């Protein structure tokens, strides 16, 4: 459970001057009490999500809801959609091995990871304001289920999204046709560096994780989890990187389309065609779209820059703690072993002289 402290510079939307409590605003969440529900193939684990808060929009001071893994997935997906540029905290993986799915060890590991997940969101100054988060933490089970099933269908896509998809496909096709196989990319060297770093980091972490997994059985130290978490975080970042690339591409393409449209428009103006007014109209629309796309892209860039700093700081803290715990655990283990062996020696001594 982590208490959030609202900074003076953070989005202060929720702090109303007429707020009744003199306490600073807080939002703490805990994921507890896993319970097996249902039977057979449809069995699943449900968790109690307890929210303690004094946020004005929330039913406080405490609210308990029941959630399952797919609800968490829904939340993550929604946040990913809405908050492009922000590194959404990662979720633990779905278990593919059937019999492992309900083992106590796995359930506990998952519960912890889910708890961390929600708390990281609650701690993030932007994400904590999300409506979807509020739905997740507060809505009754029925509403939640409806929201969840709605979004997993094809109705997830809005019409403008469909247009965008169409345009994406169109541009890809034209690229291939024109022999322009390489996708349009930013040429920001610092960003390039960051991308490279992220990709290489993932490899290194995966390697370390492999060995940590083997070690877990021998030395009873779970160093694997923190590493897995790090890997997931990196993967989440890669998702954001992809989003940024998308936004960039859209912006560039729109710019090109606008240019072409402008040429057409001028042609129409010269020939005084009746198509001119329509073209003008389209042109204005396109320009508006273009501005929006640019704004979207720039927001992502700005957010990402902030996020990367936050991420590095966070990771430093997380990994540092993980290493510390690991070293401490090892020391404790080794000392225990040494004591055990040492206690034998006087007995041996006594026996050997008899």
């Amino acid at each position, binding site marked *: 459970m982590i208490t959030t402290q609202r900074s003076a510079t953070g989005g202060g939307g929720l702090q109303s001057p007429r707020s009744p409590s003199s306490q600073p605003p807080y939002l703490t969440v805990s994921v507890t009490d896993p319970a097996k529900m249902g039977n057979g193939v449809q069995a699943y684990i449900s968790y109690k999500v307890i929210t303690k808060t004094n946020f004005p929009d929330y039913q406080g001071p405490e609210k308990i809801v029941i959630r399952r893994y797919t609800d968490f997935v829904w939340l993550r997906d929604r946040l990913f959609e809405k908050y492009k540029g922000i590194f959404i905290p990662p979720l633990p993986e779905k278990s593919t091995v059937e019999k492992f799915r309900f083992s106590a060890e796995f359930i506990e590991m998952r519960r912890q990871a889910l708890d961390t997940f929600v708390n990281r969101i609650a701690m993030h100054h932007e994400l904590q304001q999300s409506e979807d988060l509020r739905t997740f933490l507060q809505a009754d089970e029925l509403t939640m289920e409806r929201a969840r099933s709605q979004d997993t269908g094809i109705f997830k896509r809005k019409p403008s999204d469909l247009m965008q998809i169409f345009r994406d496909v169109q541009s890809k096709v034209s690229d291939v046709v024109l022999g322009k196989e390489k996708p349009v990319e930013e040429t920001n060297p*610092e960003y390039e*560096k*960051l991308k*490279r*770093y992220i990709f*290489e*980091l993932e490899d*290194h*972490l995966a*390697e*370390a994780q*492999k*060995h*940590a997994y*083997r*070690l877990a059985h*021998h*030395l009873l130290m779970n*160093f694997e989890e923190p590493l897995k978490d790090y890997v997931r975080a990196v993967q989440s970042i890669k998702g954001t990187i992809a989003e940024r690339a998308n936004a960039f591409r859209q912006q560039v393409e729109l710019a090109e389309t606008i240019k072409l449209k402008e040429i057409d428009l001028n042609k129409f103006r010269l020939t005084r065609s009746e198509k001119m007014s329509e073209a003008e109209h389209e042109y204005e629309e396109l320009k508006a779209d273009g501005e929006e796309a640019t704004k979207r892209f720039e927001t992502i860039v700005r957010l990402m820059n902030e996020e*990367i*700093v936050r991420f*590095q*700081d966070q*990771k*430093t*803290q997380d*990994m*540092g*703690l993980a*290493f*510390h*715990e*690991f*070293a*401490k655990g*090892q*020391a404790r283990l*080794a*000392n225990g*072993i*040494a004591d055990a*062996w*040492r206690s*034998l*020696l006087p007995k*041996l*001594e006594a*026996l*050997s002289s008899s």
Partner: protein
Amino acid sequence: MMGYENQGFEDAQIYASREEMESLVLDDDDNNNNGNENNPSSRSNGGANGDSIQHQHPLSSALPFAEIPTTDDDDPLLSSSSPQKSPNSFNSFLEPPSYAEAVFRSFDGDHGKQINGHGAVSTSSPSSSSDYLKISVTDPQKEQDLNNSLVPGGNAYMTYLVTTWTNLPEFNGTEFSVRRRFKDVVTLSDRLSDSYRGFFIPLRPDKSVVESQVMQKQEFVEQRRMALEKYLRKLAAHPVIRRSEELRLFLQVHGKLPLMKTTDVASRMLDGAAKLPKQLFGESVVSAAVDPNDVSQPAKGGRDLLRIFKELRQSVTNDWGGTKPPVVEEDKEFLEKRKKLQDFEQELSNVSQQAESLVKAQQDIGETLGQLGLAFVKLTKFESEEAMFNSQKVRAADMKNVATSAVKASRLYRELNAQTVRHLDKLHEYLGVMLAVNNAYSDRSNALLTVQTLLSELATLNARIEKLEAAASKIFGGDRSRVRKIEELKETMRVTDEAKSCAVREYERIKENNKNELERLDKERHDDFFGMLKGFVANQAGYAEKMASVWETVANETSGYAKNC
């Protein structure tokens, strides 16, 4: 029985990424792979009793294995490393070994108990005088067998230089060398088996012909050299065998080994020329050429076929016949002791298997830990090179410490394991001893069987004589042929009776040997096993302490993260 001996360092096969780990420069306190483990600045001096403890526990081997010898010319496989002793023992009375490549030395190196004839010169040997018999096997050379010039290019074989240092009176000289080949060792071993029945004679190295073709020649030669050295040293450590003429000839006489390969009874030194009693061959007339003393020899193939056959028949009678054999093993004490040793052998085998599992598990841990550490080191290197933020740099530095600690711990595990192998190797040694014991017991039962066979023979002869006498008495005037026959049989009986007496003496002699050897074994076993256990336990504790220290250091260094939580 035997002191710990230098072993080949089987390290090379244990870790694949050993080179990687070795080349890793740990740039905190230990700046080179072979450096001291102890940096006083990074470790608290728990009990600085290291020095005082040295003189207290000669058998605990806490100290001896901690020290890294400066040279060890008997183990060419081992790299010499810095010989410094760690001045600060981390904790208690244990002197944990250094990070250096664990070069083994004799457990009874400079301290405490020194088995005679083994290892270095003994200064305080348990025996009365300060006699010594040290042997080393070196310098393998290929030589041609010129006698067998049938095949051009001939039979090539390996010879080894066997060097002896001694002050035993029966040797002429204090230092001498001869060249011997493996065949000579086989001969020596066979002759000792014949001459020293009832003794626990160390087993010689295997012939393993097939292996020599499979293995790399060099590797095989080196293994054989080590095995030969070990074997000869064991012989030299045996209080009776070390004084044997066979061994002396082997060690001292230049040129062809003056020991016959098989038991050529004619040249046997103790009893002189003798032939087996013809009666055991057949019914022919006794002549003085028969020497009943031959029964004190074990029956061997070829010449003794008939004897073997008769003894086999006797043993079947023993097992399946209705009547009790004329003489049986009655010595209760012996039977009890034998049962105990059988139990011991069984337990030994079990423990040996568990020891193997332990070693394997330790190896596994060490490897994994090392790989994890390496992965982290690579990660930190990557992070510090690609760092764009200060937090990254800080993190990389901290992570690096943890990573190098993991690698250190992994090396410690490797050392621990190597030491463990060495300690627990005593178990394997004793398995070999048990084989020797079983051989000695076989000697005894074989001798008993010979006695029993002869007794049966006597009984049979007697019965025949009586029958003939009864038949002859019925014939008036006697039966010249029968009478002659009876005379012959009586003569046969006389010789057989002498042989029986001989066999009984031999049997008693072997029994006595067994008894003495058992006493010796019991004492040595007691000392050896306690030494082994103490060494093993001290080793485990020492290394656990070292590892705890390594981890505590880095836990302290990273404790800042815990506070920020």
